[in-house]
């Protein structure tokens, strides 16, 4: 469908950005009830390994494996979510972090899924981009509908004050568990899509740093609206590419324009500055994160800024 329009590099870039968007929504779902998880990378790993086992060892088509990956990760999410109900805040953060590490140890020591050599030769899915776009559209519609539904409002009220929500007759346990399991399921989808695009993974692919990046997408984009995760993941994935493009434009400037004294220094400085390998990219991310927490702790997009922007919304009935 999109074959003619995009070259391989752009395509791959869009796929990884899209998978990050999906992962950001997997963090957003439990976050809507106030649960902060550093285990989303672990659920991605569960979905990735489960789906890859299905396509490679049982010869199933990708569509089946994708759903299977989501369901397995979601079920494990519910299993982890049960004990997680008892704890909050940093305790939950540490619990989910511990869960993700255990998943990574299992991936490392279980030879059936490749063990230390990693899971190799996963069948490549040529339609990953179409799948990614499809999943994002479904998620966007779902969360847009959710925001104005009674379930969505119940989730918001749990986020704001759990005790008050319970007193109002909201089934806090059921909704928190649902949100946690659903988030894990979305992470599973992201993992399955990743595995069948990268075709290789090992126990370090889904690391704590990935979980931190996922958290960052939502925090930077804004965790209080459903546009936030999409926006955050898109912006943070676009920044390095944008700077790279700037550098390429800079190289198009004719040499004779810049090869005299003050300009050449400035040119070299700018050229070096825009050379964005991984360490510099991550340093910039870290600085952005700190500055964000000081200036806009609720993220770039909040409900107020959306109202100001008048982005499309489902009809509101004011009570």
């Amino acid at each position, binding site marked *: 469908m999109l074959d003619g329009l995009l070259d391989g590099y752009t395509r791959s870039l869009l796929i990884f950005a899209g998978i990050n968007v999906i992962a950001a929504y997997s963090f957003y779902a439990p976050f809507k009830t106030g649960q*902060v998880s550093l285990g989303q990378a672990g659920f991605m790993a569960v979905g990735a390994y489960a789906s890859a086992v299905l396509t490679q060892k049982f010869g199933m088509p990708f569509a089946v494996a994708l759903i299977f990956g989501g369901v397995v990760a979601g079920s494990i999410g519910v299993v982890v979510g049960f*004990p997680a109900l*008892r*704890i*909050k*805040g*940093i*305790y939950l*953060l*540490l*619990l989910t*972090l*511990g*869960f993700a*590490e*255990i998943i990574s*140890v*299992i991936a*490392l*020591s279980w030879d059936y899924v490749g063990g*230390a050599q990693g899971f190799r030769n996963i069948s490549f899915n040529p339609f990953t981009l179409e799948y990614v776009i499809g999943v994002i559209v479904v998620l966007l519609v779902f969360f847009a509908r959710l925001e104005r539904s009674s379930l969505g409002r119940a989730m918001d009220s749990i986020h704001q004050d759990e005790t008050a929500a319970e007193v109002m007759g909201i089934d806090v346990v059921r909704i928190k568990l649902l949100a946690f399991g659903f988030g894990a399921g979305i992470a599973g989808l992201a993992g399955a899509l990743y595995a069948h695009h990268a075709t290789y993974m090992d126990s370090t692919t889904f690391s*704590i*740093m990935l979980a*931190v990046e996922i*958290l*960052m997408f939502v*925090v930077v984009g804004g965790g209080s609206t459903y546009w936030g995760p999409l926006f955050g993941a898109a912006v943070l994935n676009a920044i390095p590419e944008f700077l790279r493009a700037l550098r390429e434009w800079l190289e198009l400037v004719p040499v004779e324009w810049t090869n005299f004294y003050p300009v050449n220094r400035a040119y070299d400085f700018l050229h070096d500055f825009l050379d964005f390998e*991984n*360490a*510099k990219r*991550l*340093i910039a*991310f*870290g*600085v*952005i*994160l*700190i500055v*964000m*927490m*000081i200036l806009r*702790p*609720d993220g770039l997009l909040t409900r107020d800024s959306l109202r100001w922007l008048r982005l499309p919304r489902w009809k509101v009935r004011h009570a």
Partner: protein
Amino acid sequence: MIYQQLINGLMLGASYALIAIGYTLIFGVLKLLYFAHGEVFMVGAFVGLYLVILGGANIYVALLGAMIACAMLGVIAVYVSVRPVAKNRPLAPLISTIGLTIVLQNLAVYIFGGQQVGFPETVKQELYNFGPITVSSVQIFILAIATTLMVVLWLFIEHTKMGRAIRATAENHETAALLGVNVNRVVLITFMIGSGIAGVAGVLDGIKNSGISPFIGLGAAVKGLIVMLLGGLGNVPGAMVAGLLLGMIEILSAAYIGTTERDFFSFMILILILLYRPTGLFGTRMTEER
């Protein structure tokens, strides 16, 4: 054999304990999960290494230098990622210290490169035999430094005015402030002490493993967190004992079960503690959940 393993566990545990002490002190006074602590440990290791390689310093100077540099880094951390951040959002300081973690780790990658760097032999390697167990001079050195630090810190917290102020602040910010404690200064000094100890732990880790890389921080941070929980949040002697305990458990499980399963056990301990004994093995004064 088992005695030998226990000695090795003690060694590993001593460095866990040193990291966890800083965590638990900082958590005590700020109720903040300070994510960048592992990176302070890593920076300490690099400062020590460069003092030895470039400055030709002996190991004591390197330890002291790392301690001072990390204490300063702790102060910077407070001013950059703790004080300016919104107080009314529980997540904000956590995320800003995650940001600091990412910055420090990747600055180290940028400056020192992503590879493992060898740590020169600074303590003369000799082996001593005590009946069935063999202990090296390096092990004795590390244990001695770690024990001294822990005893000094314990005396400081229990028997000095500043130590009392730290305990009072950990109990309750408002009450401590009412009683004339300068809470901001206490927070700053706590960060300095915790970070300084982490710096020493970093250098000791470099000596022990004879190599360091910019990525050692994250693992150290996670193990430090487990130890902090095991010992009880904000409980300094608890962190010391729990550190030694976790070190022993890891070494024993690595020796008798398998090296890949080692981390499995420590994370299972983390989860079990969180679910069944959130106050840790030795209790905690913290009741507030965040």
